[in-house]
């Protein structure tokens, strides 16, 4: 009995302290404003990317037709020197920004992840390098939407 109570106690404190240390830090960095922006234009503005130049040095690998919109594999590669971050947006999702990847030193500017798409849409990649912002896009057709609702 004692042992069980002890384990319960440690678990609870462990979780509580863990959350206390990590949560404020994570939430400070995670930008509610940009992630909850609706519509492509507002999101690009919130990201400070409304004046992004189109660059063919950003390569987006995505299926032309995605049968299942809930899992669409996207690979973004940037050949732009000094790439600091890569963001992936889906223009027709209610909140277009899906992810931003901040690259540390020595990281190859290429990320692969899987996103949800509500319907056929452009997939846009935004790359920040120094004080410049670049973008590129590809169209993806979705046969079955993946946002639920």
């Amino acid at each position: 009995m004692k042992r069980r109570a002890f384990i319960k106690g440690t678990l609870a404190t462990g979780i509580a302290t863990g959350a206390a240390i990590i949560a404020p830090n994570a939430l400070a960095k995670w930008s509610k404003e940009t992630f909850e922006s609706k519509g492509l234009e507002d999101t690009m503005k919130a990201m400070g990317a409304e004046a992004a130049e189109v660059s063919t040095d950003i390569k987006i690998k995505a299926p032309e037709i995605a049968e299942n919109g809930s899992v669409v594999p996207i690979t973004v590669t940037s050949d732009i020197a000094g790439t600091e971050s890569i963001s992936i947006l889906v223009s027709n999702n209610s909140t277009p920004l899906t992810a931003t990847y901040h690259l540390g030193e020595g990281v190859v500017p290429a990320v692969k992840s899987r996103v949800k798409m509500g319907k056929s849409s452009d997939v846009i990649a935004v790359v920040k390098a120094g004080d410049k912002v670049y973008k590129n896009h590809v169209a993806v057709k979705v046969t079955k939407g993946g946002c639920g609702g």
Partner: protein
Amino acid sequence: MSSIKLRTKVKGDLVEVKSLIKHPMETGLRKDKKTKEKIPAHFIQEVIVEANGKQVLSADWNTSISKNPYLSFSYKGKAGDKVKLTWTDNKGETDSAEVEVK
């Protein structure tokens, strides 16, 4: 059971990191079919990957990242590096995993 599957592979002077995280990634838009009530959003917001204690990649995620998220990238590294991945979700839940690059 850890929620994280973390694999690394040396490719020349690069280390490829591949990860699969078990997480529902609820958008907050879906409705429970029986009760017709909205299922609250529950999703990973931040993922941090460190190599030998130094941050190599941090990712900010939205609800639109697929359920059981997959992530892969490469960094300049070598065998023996210790790669650690930590995620935190919007409820403050967190988990981490560490592997040694072979």
